[in-house]
């Protein structure tokens, strides 16, 4: 099957000499909901910039549904919709005009562009705001406006760079639902996000990019299986004066009604509860201390950052 996105050995060196991408290889299959994760400055936005032509690649190959962007960028771009990280629409234009105009840029006849603008503004809850200048919208509405604009030509591949940054939880969840529907209708979605809960909840496959290289590229489930331990917070019915006895488990008291416990991959949660019951501790609720993907993300990215720090320290020592 022709991949929705294929990136081979992608390099990008900016004019300043900064090496942003050092040979990125990535493949996203049609219909996938894919997360591209990485710390700040890892190369996520540069990769997306190259895919949608805002950044010029230094070398490497990028194909969209089999069309090489170096050979026929116009055809490749017809299949892409982009929601950038920063607001990038005319602040003085009306909401409806922004979406309709984008349809025109993709060659949609005026009547069809207007129909599509109406369709997506309604779906994203912006129809009532259609005649307002875009600058009067709230941050969440502006994000939804950019999604409506990216969908007006109904692309086969939708790329979202931090789409829910600064959006309150209620709207974020409604956006997730909307994106799930778009994906279910056959649109391939690539998402970058800092909310790892978002990636875990939405995406079937995940790639982690760090310092210009893909360091993990697998399914979300397979990635989560790599977790060697999880830390849970347990709330108890009784007031606690000390950490309950848990044979083989490490933990610490948080306050007199909750404590945290570390469960290693080979350990059973059933055995933990059995041990707590034996000691008369009644657990009323339980939750992960941090998002599971976040724990894994930090463990994967940290070694690189530690290496960087060590190298930097070595260089400093060399100087002195």
């Amino acid at each position, binding site marked *: 099957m022709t991949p929705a996105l294929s990136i081979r050995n992608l390099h990008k060196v900016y004019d300043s000499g900064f090496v942003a991408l050092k040979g990125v290889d990535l493949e996203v299959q049609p219909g996938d909901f894919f997360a591209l994760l990485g710390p700040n400055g890892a190369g996520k936005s540069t990769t997306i910039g190259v895919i949608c032509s*805002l950044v010029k690649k230094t070398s490497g190959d990028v194909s969209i549904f089999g069309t090489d962007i170096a050979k026929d960028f116009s055809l490749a771009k017809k299949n892409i919709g982009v929601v*950038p990280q920063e607001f*990038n629409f005319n602040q003085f234009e009306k909401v409806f005009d922004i979406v309709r105009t984008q349809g*025109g*840029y993709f*060659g*949609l006849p005026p009547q069809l562009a207007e129909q599509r603008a109406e369709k997506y503004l309604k779906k994203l809850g912006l129809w009532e705001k259609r005649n307002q200048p875009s600058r009067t919208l709230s941050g969440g509405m502006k994000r939804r406006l950019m999604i409506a604009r990216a969908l007006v030509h109904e692309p086969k591949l939708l790329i979202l760079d931090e789409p829910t940054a600064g959006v309150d939880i209620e709207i974020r969840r409604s956006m997730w639902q909307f994106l799930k529907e778009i994906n279910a209708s056959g649109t391939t979605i690539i998402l970058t996000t800092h909310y790892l809960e978002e990636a875990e909840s939405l995406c079937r496959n995940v790639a982690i990019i760090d310092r210009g290289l893909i360091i993990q590229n697998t399914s979300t489930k397979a990635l989560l299986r790599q977790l060697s331990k999880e830390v849970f917070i347990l709330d108890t019915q009784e007031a606690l004066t000390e950490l309950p006895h848990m044979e083989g488990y490490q933990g610490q008291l948080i306050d007199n009604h909750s404590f945290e416990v570390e469960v290693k991959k080979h350990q059973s949660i059933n055995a933990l509860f059995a041990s707590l019951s034996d000691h008369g501790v009644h657990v009323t609720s339980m939750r992960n201390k941090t998002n599971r993907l976040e724990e894994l993300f930090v463990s994967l990215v940290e070694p690189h950052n530690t290496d960087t720090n060590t190298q930097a320290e070595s260089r400093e020592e060399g100087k002195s």
Partner: protein
Amino acid sequence: MTPHEQWVAFSTILVKEIRRFTRIWLQTLLPPAITIVLYFVIFGTLIGPRIGKMAGFSYIEFVVPGLIMMSVITNSYSNVVSSFYGTKFQRSVEELLVSPVPNYIILLGYVIGGVCRGLMVGLIVTLLSLFFTDLQVSHVPVTVAIVFLTAVLFALAGFINAVFANSFDDISIIPTFVLTPLTYLGGVFYSINMLPEFWQDVSKANPILYMVNTFRYGLLGITDINVAWAFSMVIGFCVVLFIFSLYLLDRGKKLRS
């Protein structure tokens, strides 16, 4: 993109540009009209009669073609420079860059948008001039062709300025320090035949002189320069600036990192 899709994209950019300058008509259409009316009143009605005839015409008749051309030049330039730099500043230019619109369509859309504003202001000024003098048109094709080509030329120049501009200051430097002096010294208010021979030769290095005089030839039938040479020069400049603008877009100069 198919030719039809390209036409749709072009008309979308053009309509957006026209909508922009008509939406803010208080900033784009009214000020040049007021300025030119002041020129008509001061140079035409108050000072003009004391100057007497120039090249066989009353002074107001002589300056009207130059003032029309001056407003066309200024407005076609400033429309494109402010609009395209504005899209860069707000990053809404990315809407175009991520779309499949070919670069020459982007360029044509902005340039024709600038031409529309230049011609609209030119038309307003022409109509206002009728309150001060009778207007004759001696050579209609020459008049139409030179005003259109001049608007294209300065819209292209405005586009190049916008591409290179890094701040709003940068989009006012060229109009203030280059365009305005060249226009004022380009035979708008006087015939270069009044100047000493040396300054006549210097004036002939000013391209705006050729546009103003050709337009004056179209209206009044008088000129200080060779009209055919003027057309060749304006067309030549248009071709060179169009190719250069396209090169900048293809390279993504200050647009793609």
